[in-house]
């Protein structure tokens, strides 16, 4: 029942925001809508994890702990993103970068994308899963190409072509899965049905099929040889969208891979999929480390760090055992930290009018609030203890050391150290130091409720408003960052344990 409500509200928001002309009411409606959706998701999680059961309705929708877990992530990131995009779009409107019609289009596409992502995690039918992911690609391609500029169109074109190729390969894999099912006489393509007959499926076909699925959805998840669209798309998209891309879309692709991995593990055995995961995880980590070192643009650096963290999640899944718990925890942590960092980067880019890190200096002087949170986020991203990413990396390492794969853990630690060094090197240069003298950046950062900033003699261009919506969503995410820092609170660890059970089936 709640699933209908969630999908219904998002669809309603998508349609209604086409008609509301006044921007204030438009943003208010959207924010309230998404908060409602988040509360329903929270209620759903409460009673699903209450009794650990799963609901399935007229064999089309299916929600077990795994999908609810991903739904939670999508809900949180969507809410944060919508709150931020309220001030982001209002700032664009004020500087008339976009017309008001375009603002409406933005909200329509935003809600359509939210609908598609919710659909992905809720649907039971594997064919429908493919279609939902195809829809997310198409809608997000339009959003990436939102600003009609050369770079964003090129990024959108690459995004849509590469992902379509990837998804077609994934369809090839799905058809092979279906073919293997038909050999044993089943006709339905539902995931629950696959799980029932998994042991009877022919392992040889499943091995090939999982290969295609892994490469197909891997392109969407940004695994290294297939990641080429990710840096362009993330750096050119408007900030709330790149936040969604990084936080949510990569995770939905991982969700799809996990769904198929559960089936293959049952019939072919754990070793096959974990080898694949480990190989590609390490590859992603290594190549991303190389790229982060020589990056010049702040958003591209964050995009490559998403590739790195996807690699870490894959390694976690590859280690299995406690590693799966770590990988799921890492998915949540990464979604939150990365969106948090994209928000900060968005504020900085809007303030300095450029993403080039050689020009940006002295962020702590111009944007004291965002600056402090940004440098703390940088340390969180690097994996220092008081923040949550360290906890999940540590759990994954525990799993690694437990099954004695010392080489992989050694490489893992080596790459993590390089990336930490690169991130701190880049971000400490832009945060501290003297702000550019000719910084005529008097423009304030996006805000909803403006509080007049007093002019600080030492830093005349210090334009930052504490209560702007952007800062609210920054704080909203920062609380999560700290919350999971040292000990995973009771209920969260229960959710993670249940989801891990589903995967280890």
């Amino acid at each position: 029942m709640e699933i209908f409500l969630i999908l219904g509200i998002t669809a309603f928001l998508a349609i209604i925001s086409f008609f509301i002309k006044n921007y204030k009411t438009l943003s208010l409606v959207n924010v309230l809508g998404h908060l409602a959706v988040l509360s329903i998701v929270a209620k759903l999680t409460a009673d699903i994890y209450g009794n650990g059961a799963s609901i399935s309705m007229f064999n089309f929708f299916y929600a077990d702990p795994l999908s609810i877990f991903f739904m939670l992530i999508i809900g949180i990131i969507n809410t944060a993103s919508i709150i931020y995009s309220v001030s982001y779009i209002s700032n664009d409107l004020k500087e008339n970068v976009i017309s008001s019609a375009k603002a409406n289009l933005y909200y329509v596409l935003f809600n359509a994308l939210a609908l598609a992502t919710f659909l992905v995690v809720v649907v039971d039918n594997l064919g429908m899963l493919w279609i939902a992911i195809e829809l997310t690609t198409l809608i997000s391609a339009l959003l990436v190409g939102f600003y009609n500029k050369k770079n964003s169109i090129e990024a959108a074109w690459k995004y849509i072509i590469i992902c379509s190729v990837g998804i077609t390969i994934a369809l090839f894999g799905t058809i092979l899965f279906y073919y293997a099912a038909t050999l044993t006489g089943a006709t339905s393509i539902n995931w629950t049905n696959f799980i029932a007959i998994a042991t009877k499926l022919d392992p040889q076909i499943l091995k090939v099929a999982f290969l295609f699925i892994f490469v197909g959805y891997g392109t969407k998840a940004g695994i290294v040889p297939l990641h080429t669209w990710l840096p362009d798309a993330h750096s050119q998209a408007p900030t709330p969208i790149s936040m969604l891309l990084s936080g949510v879309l990569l995770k939905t692709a991982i969700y799809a891979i996990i769904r198929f991995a559960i089936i293959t593990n049952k019939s072919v055995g754990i070793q096959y999929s974990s080898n694949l995961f480990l190989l590609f995880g390490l590859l992603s980590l290594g190549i991303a480390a190389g790229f982060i070192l020589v990056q010049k643009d702040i958003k591209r650096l964050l995009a490559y760090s998403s590739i790195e963290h996807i690699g870490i999640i894959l390694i976690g899944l590859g280690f299995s055992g406690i590693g799966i718990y770590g990988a799921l925890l890492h998915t949540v942590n990464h979604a939150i930290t990365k969106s948090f960092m994209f928000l900060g980067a968005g504020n900085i880019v809007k303030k300095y009018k450029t993403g080039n890190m050689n020009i940006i200096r002295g962020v702590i002087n111009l944007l004291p609030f965002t600056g402090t949170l940004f440098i703390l986020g940088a340390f969180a991203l690097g994996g220092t203890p008081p923040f949550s990413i360290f906890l999940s990396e540590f759990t994954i390492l525990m799993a690694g050391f437990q099954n004695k794969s010392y080489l992989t853990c050694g490489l893992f630690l080596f790459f993590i150290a390089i990336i930490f060094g690169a991130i701190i090197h880049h971000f400490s240069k832009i945060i501290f130091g003297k702000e550019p003298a000719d910084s005529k950046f008097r423009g304030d950062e996006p805000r909803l409720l403006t509080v007049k900033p007093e002019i600080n003699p030492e830093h005349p261009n210090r334009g930052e408003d504490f209560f702007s919506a952007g800062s609210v969503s920054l704080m909203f995410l920062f609380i999560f960052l700290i919350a999971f820092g040292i000990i995973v609170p009771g209920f969260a660890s229960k959710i993670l344990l249940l989801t891990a059970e589903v995967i280890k089936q």
Partner: protein
Amino acid sequence: MSALCFASFFPCDPLSLFFVFVILIISFPSLVFSIGYLKNEYSSRKIALSWILSLGFIFSMLGVVTTNNGFFFLIMWELMSLISYFLVVFDSKKSKSIQAGTIYIIMTHIGTTFITAAILMLFNYSKSFDFIAMKNAVELIPSGTKNLIFLFLLIGFGTKAGIVPLHIWLPYAHPQAPSHISSIMSGVMIKTAIYGLLRFVFIILGIHNLWWGVLVVILAAISCLVGVIYALIEHDMKKLLAYHSVENIGIILLGIGASMIFLKMDIPSLAILSLIAGLYHLINHAIFKGLLFLCAGSIYKATESLDIEKLGGLIKKMPYTAACFLIGSMAISALPPLNGFVSEWLTLQALFLGALNSSGFFRIFLGIAAASLALTGGLAAACFVKAFGITFLSLSRSKKAEEAVEVPFSMKFSMVFLSLLAVLFGLLAVPIVKYLSHLSQYITNIHLNTSFALNNFTLITQSKNPIYLSTPLILILFLLIIATAYFIIRRALPFQKVLINKTWDCGYYNLTPRCEPRFPNRGEYTATGFSKPFRLAFSFFLLPQTKTEKIKDSFYHTTSFKHEISTTPFFNKYIYSPILYLIMKTAKVTRKLQSGSINVYIAYIFATILLLIIFMEKF
């Protein structure tokens, strides 16, 4: 999973109690110092921030030394490095401090990765992060992994302590932090690394091979020499003191390494003696290094510059700082009545008795270690004559040094407090050694009946033919002789006039100019001059380069002549920059992967799917 959530603190363990004492005894004066130091330097908001950060820093250090859970230890350890990073980049105007901060946090992070690996390996066998559980599970670990764990721990804690190959962050990070913070960092933070070594290697892992101790002693000796040689040619006061921290960490580790050797050769009394020496030098170094950094801070406060070439003649203007700095430098160069001498004497005694009881290779090895300790002592004395003499004595060489004025009371109080402590720790050697012997018996869990301290203020070693040392006796004798000499020379003999006149400059015209421009007068000796013999003597290691530049308007007439001396930073040039260059090179190569053309990108997918299909059987 429960292993993760459970964490507790227990300050009842003697080792943690000792380190809590060391941390508090240095942090208290530094914080008092910071009241005066930060007063009109920063805006009130920044001062509040600095107070929060310093208290957080001290709290995290206390957390590190008192926790009994491995996971929580890691969290506190990295929290400590994180907060100290923010303190290093505190006044972020100077780009040097940002670079220093980055080097510092990256090196410490690499160190922590090694410690994490070691703790996880221990966790594999003990299934829980509790230190006691880890201790009991050590028998299960095969000896190969034990060696690996020891090496990881040594590298991890070595980076934080500043042992030689891993020390390059120390001369960058400590000088950039505000002085009261660099005194806490230099005095205490690098000691938490020693705590880590004691806790993990001595108590949990136990000493299993002889080469462990030998390796630690070799690294310690090298750190001593390298630290002191670099300090000799350094002219920035705080960098000089940072290099001395490297040297003193070497001396501490000399004691601890020697005790590791004796533990393996199972000579219990010597193991305890050398551990006492190491711990005693640890607390002494905390005291006098803290004192010296506070004095450097007050110099910076008074003259806005730390380059000793620019200073000079400060003793007349800042008597308190000068007196405290003198006590600090006498303590660090191990001159008798003060505390540096006692711990260095104990280390030498330990090495001597070790050499006596061992034979062949070890006798020579410990003899050479003692010789290197003596050389370090000599060079340290030379370096501090330079540091004290050039900064405080003779005439001031810059306008700022001329107008220096004594620092406010809070700074004076903390400096005097620490110098009294230095003198006290020198004289009260007996009770301290008694306490330390109980502590080291706890660490090495050997129970010994002979104690190393007699009741009447004299230390004794080796019961067979005892060797005595009593610093109070030396001091009493010293003062007695000075009193009699003073009485005879000044009082008993008939009164002779004492005249004040110009220094002898063999009649050369205007060597020390009276009128403007008074600076720089060319009479007195400067720091570069003072350290020139050392630069030439150790040129095989320092590789000095000189660069001269002549600006001529005509062929014959040179208007100005610039002569620059620089020494090559050995470790940066030959170890760290090649590695960095290699990593950056590979990164630039991987960058070409993202070449921009969409056809190549689709070709990547095409190639991946083909390769995977071909090599499907491998998985």
